[in-house]
């Protein structure tokens, strides 16, 4: 059809029609055949059409690139930990869910990577794959505290209750890290990994019973257990003199400072048991206890019983000495053969009768007769001496045996009603005199002036 208001540049004719040739619209002059203007292709707005690509093609919203990268990171972590497929799937699901949540959608990429690690961690825990937070932090190369904070936030958001990790379970996986087998180190230092793990696990179980593990970080304990196990597998002079530092160097692991303290604690426990070995003549000290470790672990239950018996006998002797002085209300004597807790209300006389069979009672039982004694003996005392209950047990958490020194509390106001009169003089003591205020202002000005000079 002819198009008005257009003239052909070639012949000047105004007879121009739309012609869709090859589906491209053209304005063609009928008279001379020249093309006045091409169609859409030429006249497209510069920089693309007015309608954007995503609007016109109506493609589904793709997951953002970071989410995809994150999921791949989760996968990579699972592969490097060699966990099975279920854990991988669960972690990816968790990651996707957590990622979309408002607390995590806008955080830094570094934090998102930590989130990936935390998802793997929680999935492992839910599906009973033992792994510590320390391992994840190492893999991510992130600060364990940051990992911890992200983990707790994530668990709260996803509303998961994950079971805690048992140190004994993690032990095996952890001991794989130590490169202490034959080809890797010289023969005199080598140890069979199965034996090493077995012995370390036994040491960890012993530590768990004697309150060394509860409340503490697992990795230093495991390091201490492996070190002692390694020493005791072949207690040569050379090995015994080998420090933890050097051991970590040849095993190619990073040393934890806390492991030294754990070694001391475990050695103390071993000494307590080692003293009960009947065929050992010399005194058992932390220096030479490592030689006895094999025997101690093999017979540990029998040794525990003996140690408890000895301990209880020692305590009863002590009680006997002090119980003669304290008054007794209940005179009904009941033997120690009774369940120990009953002695809470019983007189002190009973405790002085040792009964060897009942010595199998735990160390806890030892605390009872003497605390009951204290409570009955001195009803005026407001509190049982705090540290003593730990020292009286055979095994107690180390924080109880060696309590931190606390700053002494100042004597507090008693019987404050809250509505008392407040003396003017007291309040005035908190207010500067005018002269003082002027001086203070002056000094402040001088200080700020000198600071601005420096900077």
């Amino acid at each position, binding site marked *: 059809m002819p198009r008005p208001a257009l003239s052909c540049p070639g012949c000047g004719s105004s007879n121009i029609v739309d012609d869709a040739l090859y589906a491209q619209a053209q304005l063609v002059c009928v008279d001379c055949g020249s093309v006045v203007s091409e169609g859409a292709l030429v006249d497209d707005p510069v920089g693309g059409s007015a309608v954007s690509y995503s609007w016109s093609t109506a493609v589904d919203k793709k997951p953002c690139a970071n989410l995809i990268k994150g999921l791949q990171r989760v996968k990579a972590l699972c592969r490097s930990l060699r966990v099975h497929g279920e854990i991988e799937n669960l972690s990816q699901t968790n990651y996707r869910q957590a990622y979309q949540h408002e607390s995590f959608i806008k955080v830094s990429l570094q934090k998102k990577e930590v989130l990936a690690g935390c998802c793997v961690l929680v999935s492992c825990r839910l599906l009973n794959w033992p792994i510590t937070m320390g391992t994840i932090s190492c893999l991510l190369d992130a600060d364990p505290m940051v990992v911890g904070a992200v983990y707790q936030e994530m668990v709260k958001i996803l509303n998961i209750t994950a079971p805690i990790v048992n140190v004994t379970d993690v032990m095996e996986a952890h001991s794989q890290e130590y490169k202490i087998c034959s080809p890797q180190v010289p023969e005199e230092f080598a140890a069979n990994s199965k034996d090493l793990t077995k012995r370390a696990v036994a040491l960890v179980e012993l530590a768990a019973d004697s309150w060394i593990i509860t409340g*503490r970080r697992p990795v230093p304990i495991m390091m201490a257990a492996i070190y002692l196990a390694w020493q005791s597998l072949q207690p040569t002079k050379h090995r015994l003199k080998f420090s933890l530092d050097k051991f970590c160097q040849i095993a190619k692991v990073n040393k934890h400072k806390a492991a030294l303290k754990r070694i001391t604690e475990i050695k103390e426990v071993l000494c307590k048991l080692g003293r009960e070995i009947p065929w050992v003549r010399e005194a058992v000290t932390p220096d030479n206890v490592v030689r006895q470790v094999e025997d101690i672990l093999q017979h540990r239950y029998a040794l525990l019983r003996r140690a408890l018996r000895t301990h209880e006998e020692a305590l009863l002797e002590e009680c006997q000495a002090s119980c003669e002085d304290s008054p007794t209300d209940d005179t009904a004597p009941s033997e120690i053969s009774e*369940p120990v*807790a009953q002695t809470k209300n019983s007189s002190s006389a009973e405790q002085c009768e040792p009964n060897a069979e009942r010595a199998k009672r735990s160390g806890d039982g030892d605390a009872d007769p003497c605390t009951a004694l204290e409570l009955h003996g001195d009803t005026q005392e407001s509190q049982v001496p705090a540290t003593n209950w730990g020292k009286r047990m055979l095994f107690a958490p180390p924080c109880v045996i060696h309590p931190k020194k606390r700053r002494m509390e100042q004597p507090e106001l008693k019987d404050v009603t809250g509505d008392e009169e407040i003396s003017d003089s*007291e309040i005035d003591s908190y207010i500067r005199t005018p002269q003082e*205020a002027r001086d203070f202002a002056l000094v402040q000005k001088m200080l700020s002036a000198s600071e601005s000079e420096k900077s």
Partner: protein
Amino acid sequence: MDESALERYFDDSIANESSFMLGEELGLQDPAPPRQDASHLSAKAGPRGEQGEELDLSFLPDELSTQDDTAAAAESQTAADTSHDSGICPDYNSQDSTAAELQQGASTSGMGTSASPFCPMTPMTPMTPVTERSGIIPQLQNIVSTVNLCCPLDLKFIALQARNAEYNPKVLTMSQCQCQSVVNVTLENMSLFIMVFQRFAAVIMRIREPRTTALIFSSGKMVCTGAKSEEQSRLAARKYARVVQKLGFPARFMDFKIQNMVASCDVFFPIRLEGLVLTHQQFSSYEPELFPGLIYRMVKPRIVLLIFVSGKVVLTGAKERAEIYEAFENIYPILRGFRKHVIT
């Protein structure tokens, strides 16, 4: 004796311990050796692996109900008592929970054998003991309160005129969210939840008696921390208001409210935190890699408890003293159940 028998033996001893306490409370004279206690034992702990006896509650006397009433009355009285905290009560009344747990024992007879035969599988709230009184009273360590002075304040002027004030408007201070990942926390530090802004826009004022610290904001609102009792907190807040008054502002003392109370105490026996988190999973959170204590969020009353292996317990989040006492009385029987003996 082999290991499994040894285990059973020790678990028996835990049960025996309780059965004897119950025996005394009910006035039963039964100082018999463990063999005879088997009937008590089976009634309380339900069928164990090898014993498999029937649940036999016939020995329960009727007096149990009357004991409840007197015990409950005594408990409410103790809770309402606002006298100062002392340590252990003179009439140290031993435990406690067994009577209550026996009543519910029938429903929990299927419980596992190891850690605690008395804790139910999935409690919605921790069981409250019938016979109360652990004999331990938590001591208040810190009270946080707020008050409105109802007048705008010139903080620079206050900082200039008052001796005990500091004001650093350009200082960035550690915010509360950073505090959450602090691991080595002492009992005293736990109580210092300071409300801060990124730029510290308040005057910090301190008085000696009662030893407290106040944050005074330019809007006239004030936060007072560090007092050891509600009355001391109120007295301290009034003293701060007086100081502000003396400096020339028309300060009043409106809407004094206690926002948080922190208390601590010691149960004097070690606690197996791993066991506690297993049976009370929905309330507890225990991450030894992050924090050495177990965080127990009690539902009723709404208190957060930090439980440590040494037996020390910190209670926080209370608005009233009674909540703290109630929370501790709720947790004590649970902790007693985890008073694990040394040998497994």
